[in-house]
């Protein structure tokens, strides 16, 4: 088995997430690359939750429609996912609560009396997952000792009860196939959110401020957990408006600060974002997209906020926007977003989504280009200080409170070089030009970076165009079909030169996006680039490789 998937499902509160982590961890230890897709409703108990754990010899970042194993903790899991079973698949189910009606005779099944076992072991309801994982391990021909090891790592409490339940499941099942270990180094398994958090920390994050909102709350939780260890301040204020204004206060004091939110919270932040543009106070916002309008599908994914982040906030000001497509890019570009924000004294937005943020991927830190925490332009203490000194590149030297005999004034009104309000026409235009001038220099600096990446068959005249979390699925589909892939990472200021370069030789450009109106296609039109075809998906779920391949095939016969 070189490429296979396991689907585990149950109700919210069944520990499906933990099960995904355990199974993913197991397969990762065997030297396989792993990707975990997590699908859960916006409820705490009940509903239907499932995870798809895909493993392969090659790095992967997307799921397939079919499942080689289904672990059904309840009837819904069988009913909703039985179409994913192939003739070679195995279904392991709780025989005390699941009936396999309508299952093809060819699919092998293992029934485990989980309710009975749990009762006999005196274990909690939540440990039903340990029992079914035990059965899976046996069915897949994986050594019990490896599972024991992973259990000890993943479960901090009641480890013995989990082990006992797992062992009973293991003993109940029979070996039906053999997942072989692969001799390659195991890479850490992290979520996109964790990669973002680590990137920010790497570049010298001092403070993280956030109001909880799916899909970026895990960044808040993770950074709060490690705050003392990393010397971070982590604050959860009254609202997203409080968040961004507090962040601007920290920024004024010279503290590197970031925030996390989603579309709804970002709506509340827009006035503060515009204030950042006017006052030239650097801030970083992690904007994890989820489907709207309004509350929409809170726990699902989308790519609908591109134009929102591009134009949010009143007035015209320079901003840096990057959309990483995997964990390495999330790590690298989150660090750069912080660096560039301080270098140019502008807001930076890291545009992610639920699929990237909450998906679990391998992470190879050694493949990431070197990252350094960069010092911003500081005042030389020679000439009298002016916070908004009009310089050639528009960047004014920074000084921070307390600085002896120095007055540091920031202002949301139009202001003169010392930060005092002005409405004088010539000066107003001059200061606006000063701020906008930074964009040209930022654009030049970005030439040093790989802001538009290409993959696949680089000579192919047909290219898939994607951004953000669709990178993984597009690269894999293109590989199978012999196509090229173009992925712009930086979306503001748009890297026209590098994009033009990437387009060389391409006759047909197919844009793949998780929205209904083709937002990247629309952005490209502004720069004079035209997309030939669009593949759009807007049901909140990510493309599976098979689904995308099929849709591409319909276009490139």
């Amino acid at each position, binding site marked *: 088995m070189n490429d296979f998937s396991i689907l585990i499902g149950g109700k919210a509160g069944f520990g499906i997430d933990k099960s995904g982590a355990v199974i993913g961890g197991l397969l990762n230890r065997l030297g396989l690359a792993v990707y975990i897709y997590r699908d859960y409703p916006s409820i705490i108990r009940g509903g239907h939750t499932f995870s798809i754990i895909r493993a392969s010899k090659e790095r992967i970042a997307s799921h397939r429609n079919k499942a080689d194993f289904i672990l059904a903790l309840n009837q819904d899991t069988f009913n909703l996912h039985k179409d994913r079973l192939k003739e070679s698949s195995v279904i392991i189910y709780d025989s005390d609560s699941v009936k396999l009606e309508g299952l093809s005779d060819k699919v092998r099944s293992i029934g485990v009396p989980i309710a009975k076992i749990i009762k006999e072991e005196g274990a909690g309801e939540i440990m039903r997952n340990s029992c079914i994982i035990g059965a899976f391990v046996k069915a897949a021909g994986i050594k019990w000792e490896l599972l024991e090891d992973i259990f000890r790592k993943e479960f901090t409490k009641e480890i013995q009860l989990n082990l006992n339940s797992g062992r009973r499941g293991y003993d109940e099942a029979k070996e039906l196939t053999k997942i072989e270990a692969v001799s390659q180094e195991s890479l850490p398994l992290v979520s996109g959110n964790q990669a973002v958090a680590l990137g920010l920390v790497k570049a010298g994050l001092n403070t993280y401020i956030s109001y909880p909102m799916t899909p970026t709350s895990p960044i808040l939780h993770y950074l709060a957990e490690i705050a003392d260890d990393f*010397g971070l301040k982590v*604050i959860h204020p009254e609202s997203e408006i409080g968040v961004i*204004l507090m962040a601007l*206060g920290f920024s004024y*004091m010279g503290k590197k600060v970031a925030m996390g939110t989603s579309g709804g919270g970002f709506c509340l932040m827009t006035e503060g974002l515009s*204030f950042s543009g006017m006052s030239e106070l650097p801030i970083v916002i992690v904007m994890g997209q989820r489907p709207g309008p309004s509350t929409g599908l809170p726990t699902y994914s989308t790519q609908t906020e591109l134009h929102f982040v591009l134009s949010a906030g009143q007035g015209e000001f320079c901003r840096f926007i990057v959309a990483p497509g995997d964990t390495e890019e999330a790590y690298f570009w989150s660090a750069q977003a912080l660096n560039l924000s301080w270098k140019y004294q502008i807001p930076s937005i890291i545009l992610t989504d639920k699929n990237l943020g909450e998906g679990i991927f391998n992470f190879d830190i050694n493949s990431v280009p070197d990252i350094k925490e960069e010092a911003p332009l500081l005042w030389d203490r020679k000439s009298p200080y002016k916070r908004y000194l009009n310089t050639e590149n528009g960047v004014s030297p920074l000084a921070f409170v307390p600085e002896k005999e120095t007055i540091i004034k920031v202002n949301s009104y139009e202001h003169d070089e010392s930060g005092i309000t002005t409405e004088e026409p010539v000066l107003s235009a001059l200061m606006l030009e000063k701020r906008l001038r930074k964009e040209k220099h930022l654009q030049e600096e970005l030439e040093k970076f790989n802001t538009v990446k290409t993959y696949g068959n680089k000579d192919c005249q047909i290219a898939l165009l994607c951004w953000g979390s669709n990178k993984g699925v597009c690269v894999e589909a293109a590989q199978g079909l012999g196509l090229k892939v173009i992925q712009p990472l930086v979306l503001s200021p748009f890297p026209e030169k590098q994009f033009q370069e990437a387009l060389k030789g391409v006759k047909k450009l197919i844009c793949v996006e998780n929205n209904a109106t083709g937002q990247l296609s629309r952005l490209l039109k502004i720069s004079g680039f035209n997309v030939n075809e669009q593949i759009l998906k807007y049901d909140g779920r990510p493309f599976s490789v098979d689904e995308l391949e099929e849709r591409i095939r319909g276009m490139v016969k």
Partner: protein
Amino acid sequence: MSQINLGTCAPNTWCPGCGNFAILNAVKAVLGELNAEGLPLENIVLVSGIGCHAKIVDYVNVNSFYSIHGRATPAAEGIKLADPKVKVIVFAGDGDAYGEGIEHLIFAAKRNIDITMIIHNNRVYGLTTGQYTPTSPLGFKGRSTPAGTIEPPLNPLEVMLASGATFLGRGTSHGIDLLKKLFKEAIKHKGFSLVDVLQVCVTYYNMYEYYDKRVYGLKDHNPQDYVQALSKIREWDYNSDSPIALGAFYKKEAPSFEEKFSEPGTPAQDRDTKINDFLKGKI
């Protein structure tokens, strides 16, 4: 008195007779005194919202953060949390702090974060030319309520007391000596302090005479006593024609929010090791 010049070159654009002048002069005097007593001026940050009041930061030659409407408070909290040794003094209007930004005000009081709020409470929107505010009396005829408001005002000091503020005072723009005393006390108080200044808008709501007839200084009042403070705060509800007490209503010692945070700062080398340790745990 202070010998230092705290003025700026910004031309003052308040109306002649505006109550803001009293606040400006009192603040300058207090900053001078505090400086003479050893507080370095560079350790002070003035924060303002948006409105007539907010121009004050352009007129005082001290570090300042000219925020947006309703949002002076959270910015001030960020500044304080970033460096607890900095004195943060916030100027906000009644529309600003008690209207658009009341959420932040309540939370700042709840946290007892060590910032000082000076509210220019003229009970009318000045810069937007005369609409009612959260503290305008019932029936106030403003440009958005020509037939008079149909909602009573809120009593901001009562709200603040309930929210957890640890210093509460009230003065008027006709009493600069009391303002100086209250500002100084509020700034020196460790914890969340708020001084509600009945600051008169001569153009849209001239209340000088009204206040002069009704105000009196608190006497035999124990500001440590919550019940006494509440009763004095409730005496005038910003609506009735009852006597209006001035002075420090409430003062309480309590731990402040910023002192509960440990000082961050992990050297870059250390960070790398910790990131690698974390990743090792993810295999």
